[in-house]
């Protein structure tokens, strides 16, 4: 997923993970049958009359399912003044509808043994319930209701915006690496909406009004702007029938595609420092690169994915071996890149210097690594290892129906089509050492670079008091 609002800390965790998957046909040893695409569980697709796309991936291992509704809207659809509105609306989706009291949605899911939540990213807003496989209709009935019948109450909105402000303080303001990442994005992107944090700028959250949220809901929450994904122990025909029953009657909406500001070419390296209370410095570097959606050469994003793995695809990859162990210039160092964003993104590097090393030394070491991939072809053995890991990952991912559904939902929602979940494999398999060298040479150049450095400020944390409470005393505020 797009980590646009979370710090990268220790790189790969949660970044490449979500999409570094997929089996390849090329390997030096025999693959288990389950790893080949022919035997991958099939995905069934149907589009209802009102435009709702329904995807079903049966997986009979356990009597459970995940039901997910993905809306084509997120922070990258927003504009100045209302940043954060997608995420606030996501919170409001739990606050009641024409037929559901506030919180009743969650209460019903809980009483059915369900787990539920929602998440907002730059390119999507998604809602899910994980349930025993006989409870699918509970999910559909509730999700259909809040797709078109949300009741947005002014008092409730005011209160929830306060909750979101607390969330922002927790996630961003009180985390030095996170605040550095936020400022880094706002610097790297001049015009692209990816410059805005998913949670919104504090000033915009102050100004956000009920009308803004209502309008956002009307504009984007409709069956023809959503994808319903179900994975687990289900029968596709039954799922389609239930979807028709509950979502079928919903009215479609005229959806105007978002007007998205394009990022102009960057004309030279950018560099900022971010002062925050912290103990250790932190380095972020990002190069403007294409994503699948707008690649000039179709293979380029896949070559970039493979490049990220060459540098940081595990403990045997170059950064771990050479920066953390070998030269010991980094306490941690990583890369991240996602080929599957709606708009062109960044190829990111991040790291913390090792003891006795500083940010310039770490940056120089990372630049030297970049230079090396530009000058020398990647060793075929390294590529082979990455392919093997991808193949294995494709098997391991089947341990989670949630994850399988999420892949489909994300690909469909960013406009690439869910079918890419299977084809992705071959695309990566086809990447050559020359292509990796080519994308490194073309894109990892200073004119495309933004650097942010966390400049630690004193914490000055000191203990003020520690005292016993008298036995039986209450800790009431007087």
């Amino acid at each position, binding site marked *: 997923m*797009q980590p646009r609002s*979370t710090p990268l800390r220790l790189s790969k965790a*949660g*970044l490449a993970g979500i999409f570094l998957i997929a089996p390849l046909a090329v390997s030096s*040893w025999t693959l288990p*049958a*389950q*790893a080949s695409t022919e035997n991958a569980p099939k995905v069934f697709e149907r589009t209802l009359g009102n435009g709702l796309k329904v995807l079903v991936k049966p997986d009979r291992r*356990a*009597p459970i399912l995940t039901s997910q509704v993905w809306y084509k809207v997120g922070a990258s659809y927003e504009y100045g003044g209302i940043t954060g509105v997608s*995420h606030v609306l996501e919170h409001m989706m*739990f606050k009641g509808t024409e037929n*559901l*009291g*506030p*919180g*009743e*949605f*969650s209460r019903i899911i*809980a*009483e059915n*043994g369900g787990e539920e*939540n929602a998440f907002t990213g730059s390119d999507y807003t998604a809602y899910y319930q994980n*349930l*025993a496989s006989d409870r699918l209709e509970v999910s559909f009935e509730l999700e259909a209701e809040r797709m078109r019948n949300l009741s947005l109450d002014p008092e409730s909105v005011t*209160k*929830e915006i306060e909750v*979101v402000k*607390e*969330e922002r*303080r*927790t996630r961003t*303001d009180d*985390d030095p690496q996170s605040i550095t990442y936020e400022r880094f994005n706002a610097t790297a992107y001049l015009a692209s909406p990816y410059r805005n944090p998913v*949670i919104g700028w504090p000033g915009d959250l102050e100004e956000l009004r009920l009308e803004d949220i209502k309008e956002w809901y009307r504009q984007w929450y409709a069956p023809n702007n959503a994808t319903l994904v179900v994975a687990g122990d289900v029968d596709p025909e039954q799922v389609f029938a239930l979807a028709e029953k509950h979502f079928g009657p919903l009215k479609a909406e005229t959806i105007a595609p978002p007007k998205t500001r394009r990022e102009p070419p960057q004309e030279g390296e950018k560099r900022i420092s971010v002062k925050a*209370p*912290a103990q*250790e410095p932190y380095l972020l570097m990002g190069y403007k690169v294409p994503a699948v959606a707008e690649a000039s050469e179709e293979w380029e994003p896949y070559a970039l994915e493979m490049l990220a793995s060459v540098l940081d695809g595990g*403990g045997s990859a170059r950064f771990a071996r050479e920066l953390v162990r070998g030269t010991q210039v980094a*306490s941690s160092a990583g890369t991240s890149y996602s080929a599957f964003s709606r708009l062109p993104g960044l190829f990111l590097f991040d790291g913390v210097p090792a003891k006795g090393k500083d940010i310039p030394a770490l940056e120089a070491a990372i630049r030297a690594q970049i230079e090396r991939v530009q000058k020398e072809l990647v060793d075929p053995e390294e590529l082979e290892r990455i392919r*093997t*890991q991808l193949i294995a990952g494709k*098997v391991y991912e*089947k*341990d*989670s129906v949630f994850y399988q559904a999420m892949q489909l939902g994300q690909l469909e929602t960013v406009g690439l089509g869910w079918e890419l979940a299977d084809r992705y494999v071959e695309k990566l398999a086809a990447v050559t050492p020359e292509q990796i060298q080519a994308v490194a040479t073309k894109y990892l150049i200073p004119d495309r670079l933004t650097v942010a450095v966390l400049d630690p400020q004193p*914490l*000055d*944390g000191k*203990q*003020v*008091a520690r*005292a*016993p*409470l*008298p036995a*039986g*005393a209450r*800790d009431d505020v*007087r």
Partner: protein
Amino acid sequence: MCVDYLDSGTERKGRGLTWLAVGLLVLASAAQATPQIQTWQTGNGARVLFVAAPELPMVDVRVVLDAGSARDGTKPGLASMSASMLTQGARDWDADTIALRMEDVGASLTSSADRDLLNVSIRSLTQPKALDTALETLTGVLTSPTFESDDLERLRQNTLIGLRQDQESPRTVAQKALYQAVFGDHPYASHPTGTEESVRALTREDLAAFHQQYFTGANALVAIVGDLDRASAEGLAERVVGSLPAGESPAPLPEVAELAAGALERIVFPSTQTTVLVGQPGMRRGDPDYFALYLGNHILGGSGFVSLLMQEVREKRGLSYSTYSYFLPLAQPGPFLMGLQTRNDQADQARQVMMDTLRRFVTEGPSEKELAAAKKNLTGGFPLRIASNSDIIGYLAVIGFYGLPLDYLDRFIERIEAVDAAQIRDAFARRVHPDRLAIVTVGGDGAPQVSAAGVIP
């Protein structure tokens, strides 16, 4: 998981959703296939728990040792450093070689220590070359780690950086302070990573001695889930831990003392929010009150959006994004803990709401309606807990390590169903003491002075 924002919220009052088919709310039969656990011992006395999972061509192995940070003695951080060092060198393999061995075959190897246990895990395909390499690597790091000085020095320096970064996070600062306040002299008080001072003092000899003492058959549990038959699993377990010395189990950990009085610690921190944590010794694994406390806590602060704490703190008042309570059951009683974060100037109010919610729950217990809803959630959601190999291996490790009955999963639903409101009220009254809680706040200068009775300034 990698989601950008996890959210939601709920409120209890509101119009009824009468059109929602009532039948849907009726629980399906509780009859649910639970994993069939097989168990045996290796020649040197290690216990093995195995579940055959033939659906996917993969295997998870987790070796669990009674060698968590509670066994650090006078050297906090020892268990954790030992665990980290296992993957940095073994036999004639250096760290690069170990990483290459695993990643060349698409397998993974992880090791870590928490308070009670040290665990070393692999995940591999069943493809013979992959599994053989992964198992040989696991065997090597368990039985013959080298603990090279250079690697120790590198990990030490990086651990020290990690400890300094911990000080950047108000929540981590609060968590560490709370464990100190709750556990005092008990080994559970220390953070598994140790302190700057103790990590600086660790030597290669310390690690070797720790390994020699705790990496034994008698002290090991092997959990296996995957596409294997019993004979293969037996061979696997014997191969992985069979060459460890038989050894013996360490003495039980010391008892955890109840807190004699409440205490409040306020740490000034340059943050926009104040983190409030309160805690006390809670319960152990296998505790006679386990299900009553577990179910009660589920209602109080363990069920996310529908919990009482979430209702009172977030939904009614908008005071915090996150608020929760939990019991962390350990070999000895682990903590009962409640927490939230809120804007500095609201810290006292939010703490008050959290404490009032706890007091009311301890005094009144759950309503019948709350109890019924929580039972439906836990029993109806049970299939989700055992759906994946990852879930099952986690349960095997806990069941095996803490000596829980092998029918723990089979009987989970009936045990939850058997708890009534009076039992919860009684268990909370005996075990949770709102007037004797350790309270830690970590937050900004903007917060009003804490005005706990009799305390401060």
